[in-house]
């Protein structure tokens, strides 16, 4: 076991990022896709905080970035959920594969 440090956190965040990406690519339910997006954003937040802590503690850029990402995530999630609910109303389903009318 090693002393946990920046690289450990970077590993966690990268892993979480790609877990989120994997979820986005494979989940068929729109809400779960949205959840995957949240994971992605959180992994990014972790990155910012870790960099801020270990490398650039002099300024709070990373921290504020995280803060605003959280806020954006909330707004994005809200709009996305509104759209999903509207889609559900018209399609009677939130399966992403049922919304494929627009193609080619």
């Amino acid at each position: 076991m090693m002393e946990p440090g920046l690289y450990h956190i970077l590993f966690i965040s990268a892993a979480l990022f790609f877990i989120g990406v994997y979820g986005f690519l494979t989940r068929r339910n729109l809400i779960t896709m949205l959840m995957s997006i949240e994971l992605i954003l959180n992994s990014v937040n972790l990155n910012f905080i870790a960099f801020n802590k270990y490398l650039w503690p002099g300024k709070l850029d990373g921290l504020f970035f995280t803060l605003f990402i959280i806020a954006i995530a909330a707004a994005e999630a809200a709009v996305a959920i509104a759209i999903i609910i509207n889609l559900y109303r018209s399609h009677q389903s939130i399966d992403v594969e049922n919304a494929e009318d627009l193609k080619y």
Partner: protein
Amino acid sequence: MITGSTILFYLLAALTLTCGLLSVSTRQIFRAAIYLLFSLIGIAGIYFWLQYEFIAAVQIVVYVGGIVVLIIFSIFLTQQAGEKLPKQKPGRKIFSALAVFCGFALTMVQVYKHEFDFDKTMVSPTMSNIGQNMLSTKEGGYALPFEVISMLLLAAMIGCIVIALRSKPETK
């Protein structure tokens, strides 16, 4: 040397990743939401561990208290309870896994190869520090993003209202 702090970190890491993984793999949508919740809590834990308490608090308030609740509500709205999620095609899964693994490997290789210049001071921000910067309009201040995000939230709100509360008779 194994200290309590180290063990705590690994526990948090394990919680975050496991829950994250379960959240994208379980076929029970409600469970997925709960796993997401725990994963986010794990991340909040890591923030605590890093002594970024303010962010940890925000994380818990906004995510746990806000977004996850929103998601759970929307699950209630759109899903009959107990219904399992549909399966994805194996081909898609395999290809996604491959792509994701490549991406992960690529990123990790680059990150581990890179020599970051560490700052040994390891200071943590204080609350007043954060507060002053947040509303400052000078160099290093964050007043403008603050205003921008307020406009964004306003716009998102308007958008949500229009879309989610669509009133049928008014349109024709």
